[in-house]
């Protein structure tokens, strides 16, 4: 008996070691593309920033720090970012509060207006502001004024409007859940409404608030589309990267500024992840949802705020739509469809490229983030922890930095990825990995919710892992996967930053066309391209919504 046990023990030990290696395998397989398309380009950026004519060294950084212009640009960036983020947060909080916690009319309409800018290319705010307040803008022409918006305030206003919908989504989610019992207790204890807001509402939404602050900070400091269009001579770090790389082909300086940009974005992303991890457990299963009560004065005040902000958002979008339909802005304001003929270089092709890239990014993105989330949940191992880190790492990487990394890493015939370099595929891949963290967190939350018990039930009934996945996990995950696909599609349609360095004359995408046309002064055509992007996204959203409704999935949020 003893001998038998000993004989059996040895293979068991060996088997367990092999099992441990086998358990790592899925994480390694799923992690490889992340290493190739995130870590590898970042390593190239880092390496290049240290490369000087005399070999490796800190010379680039030293040159930068000793350069007064650079220090001024850094200061500019922070001056824009801090002010824009602060203003956007206050506005978004008030708006989200009005939508979630008041009884003002048309709350659903206001909610839709708030997220409308997400359907437009990421520089639409600057585009709209130029049309309204530019030298040839509607206001200056109509009233003979001399408002000069180009520069600091132009960037700040554009940035506030740019990040508003992102902040609104986060804060709206934070304000959506509340425990009525706590508010009743506060009232019974004699707290005034203002006191209840300070002592109950604000603390309960502090994690959402922190997350929104960091998201706004990162978005503004890494945005270059708006500063390019409306910044005038006022340069910020993000537009400086573009100038150095595209304008002067100075990759070394581009990478150094990219690294400088990476640091605050990375810190913000890390703090945000740490903070939002604590977001749960505020609501217990016994809590009773808060139903907003009527309060005329409060509702009226909030309605006024919502109307004002909505007016600002709508006027930006509507003036772009309007400009796309007039003969020649602002000289001949007669109706014309001539800008939709797209008699520019490449014609309408960039829009088709965008759609093609976005569909591809949606497909690849869903598979990539779901595979990562699934492997981390079902095959726990040390490698899975590494995979988790890689999966959320892109949240800290500005799109331009990632795009620049792609040039440096893949623009060499010796690299196997070179085969797709300069094609639409690499643009789709850049978008997938740029937005990887967000998509990954959505699918991870979903997979966690449906995990454990169904797997066990299926296993005891004789289901293999594959059968469980196909028959149970996938059907339950389906609505979330559609949501993630829509997310990748939308962002890929509107983004500039990740793709700006990767496009070629043949692979130009619509959002970049808007930037180029606007830059050349072809305002009307730029507007027409923007309208096409907005229309495409709205059509896709509507089609997906109808499809999901037809399949019985009504409570799926498509706008993230």
């Amino acid at each position, binding site marked *: 008996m003893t001998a038998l046990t000993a004989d059996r023990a040895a293979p068991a030990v060996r088997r367990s070691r092999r099992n441990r290696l086998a358990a790592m395998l899925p994480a390694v397989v799923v992690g490889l593309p992340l290493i190739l398309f995130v870590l590898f380009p970042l390593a190239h950026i880092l390496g290049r920033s240290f490369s000087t004519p005399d070999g490796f060294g800190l010379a680039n950084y030293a040159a930068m720090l000793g350069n007064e212009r650079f220090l001024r640009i850094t200061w500019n960036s922070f001056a824009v970012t801090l002010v824009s983020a602060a203003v956007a947060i206050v506005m978004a909080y008030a708006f989200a509060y009005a939508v979630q916690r008041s009884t003002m009319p048309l709350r659903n309409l206001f909610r839709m207006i708030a997220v409308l800018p997400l359907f437009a290319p990421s520089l639409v705010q600057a585009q709209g502001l130029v049309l309204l307040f530019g030298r040839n803008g509607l206001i200056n022409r109509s009233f003979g004024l001399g408002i000069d918006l180009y520069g600091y305030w132009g960037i700040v206003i554009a940035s506030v409007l740019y990040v508003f919908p992102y902040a609104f989504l986060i804060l709206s989610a934070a304000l959506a859940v509340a425990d009525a019992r706590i508010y009743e207790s506060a009232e019974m204890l004699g707290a005034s409404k203002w006191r209840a807001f300070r002592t109950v509402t604000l603390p309960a939404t502090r994690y959402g608030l922190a997350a929104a602050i960091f998201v706004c900070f990162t978005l503004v400091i890494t945005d270059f589309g708006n500063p390019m269009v409306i910044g005038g001579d006022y340069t910020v770090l993000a537009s400086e990267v573009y100038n150095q790389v595209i304008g002067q082909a100075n990759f070394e300086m581009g990478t150094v500024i990219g690294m400088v940009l990476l640091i605050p974005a990375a810190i913000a992303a890390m703090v945000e992840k740490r903070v939002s991890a604590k977001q749960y457990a505020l609501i217990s299963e016994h809590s009773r949802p808060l139903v907003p009560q009527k309060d005329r004065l409060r509702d009226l005040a909030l309605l006024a705020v919502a109307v004002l902000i909505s007016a600002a958002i709508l006027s930006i979008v509507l003036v772009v739509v309007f400009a796309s339909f007039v003969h020649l802005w602002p000289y001949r304001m007669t109706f014309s469809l001539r800008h939709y003929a797209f008699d520019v270089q490449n014609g309408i092709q960039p829009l088709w490229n965008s759609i093609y890239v976005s569909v591809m990014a949606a497909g690849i993105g869903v598979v990539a983030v779901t595979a990562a989330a699934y492997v981390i949940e079902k095959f726990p191992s040390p490698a899975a922890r590494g995979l988790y880190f890689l999966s959320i790492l892109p949240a800290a990487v500005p799109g331009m930095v990632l795009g620049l990394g792609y040039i440096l890493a893949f623009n060499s015939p010796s690299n196997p990825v070179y085969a797709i370099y300069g094609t639409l595929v690499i643009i789709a891949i850049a978008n997938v990995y740029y937005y990887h963290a967000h998509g990954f967190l959505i699918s991870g939350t979903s997979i966690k919710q449906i995990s454990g018990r169904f797997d066990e039930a*299926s296993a*005891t009934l004789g289901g293999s892992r594959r059968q469980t996945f196909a028959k149970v996990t996938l059907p339950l995950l389906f609505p979330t996967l559609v949501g993630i696909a829509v997310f990748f599609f939308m962002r890929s349609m509107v983004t500039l930053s990740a793709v700006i360095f990767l496009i070629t004359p043949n692979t130009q995408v619509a959002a970049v066309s808007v930037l180029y046309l606007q830059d050349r002064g072809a305002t009307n055509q730029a507007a027409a391209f923007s309208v096409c992007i907005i229309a495409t996204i709205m059509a896709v959203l509507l089609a997906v919504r109808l499809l999901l409704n037809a399949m019985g999935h009504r409570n799926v949020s498509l706008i993230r």
Partner: protein
Amino acid sequence: MTLALSHVTKRFGNTVALDDISLTIERGEFICFLGPSGCGKTTLLRIIAGLELAEEGTVTLEDRDLSEVPARHRNFGVVFQSYSLFPNMTAARNVGYGLECRGRPRAEIEARAAEMLRIVALSDHAHKLPSQLSGGQQQRVALARALAPDPEVLLLDEPLSALDAKVRESLRLEIRDLQRRLGITTIMVTHDQEEALTMADRIVVMDTGRIAQIGTARELYDRPASRFVAEFIGRMNVLPVAGGRLAGLPLAVPQGATLIGIRPEDVRLHAGEGPPGRAILPARLTNTIYLGNLAHLVLSVEGIEHEIVAEVPGHACKAIADAPQIGLELPAETIKVLA
């Protein structure tokens, strides 16, 4: 179909969840694992199901070692506490799922699912989703699903705890009846002693990862092996004794006994001093809990630290409560030596 556990041990970190559990279950038997939460009963069930691995020991079915066989190849039916019905499938598809995974022909799957739903009286609800069924109905679907692939053993993990009292009682009988008809070996985990007493052939009482006692309901009630079992099943007055005496009164217990128990219904009360020649202690009534058909009288006796609870018929309580003096008798044949 003998199911045998031998020397099963499981640790979670430094805590021992199961400590050297050995147990043999006969074919067709209905066994309950009974114990307070954290005693290891659910872990033991999960090890039998193959959802968790024991560090030491084996699980064998008819001398076939299952220790290394994954859950999906064991052919054990499991009903989970939270039902775990697949929310994307109708009741019928849930029930047919096990056969579907075994690659059976469609006609057979449908016929079997219909048959099982008929057995649990849910034929009318075959095409409903779990969310459209009540808790009791969901649990019956879960039972039908577990039984549909004709499992060797049926495992029930607190199957009734999420249901309200009325449904629970009727499902108890239904499950027991079904189990008898199918003659399937069944293990149920519960923390509810009444559930265990009414359903099981034999009860395994567990305490902190060990088996405290195995026996029929009657054996456990009449001859508890330890203070834990005595107090967990039914009520028990537990009293320390020394040198065979309780408060100076000699008892018919072994000289070395240190702890005895007596059930409240076995305590005999006399209004007055009681019949002479018997061992009777003078007692004082401190509290009366009137329950209608019964009453619990709480008494204190000089020289005994703990109060003693006696159960009397409801109509008898007034006579005793009004008596100027109460005599408390512990009949020798009802005294249980616990340590």
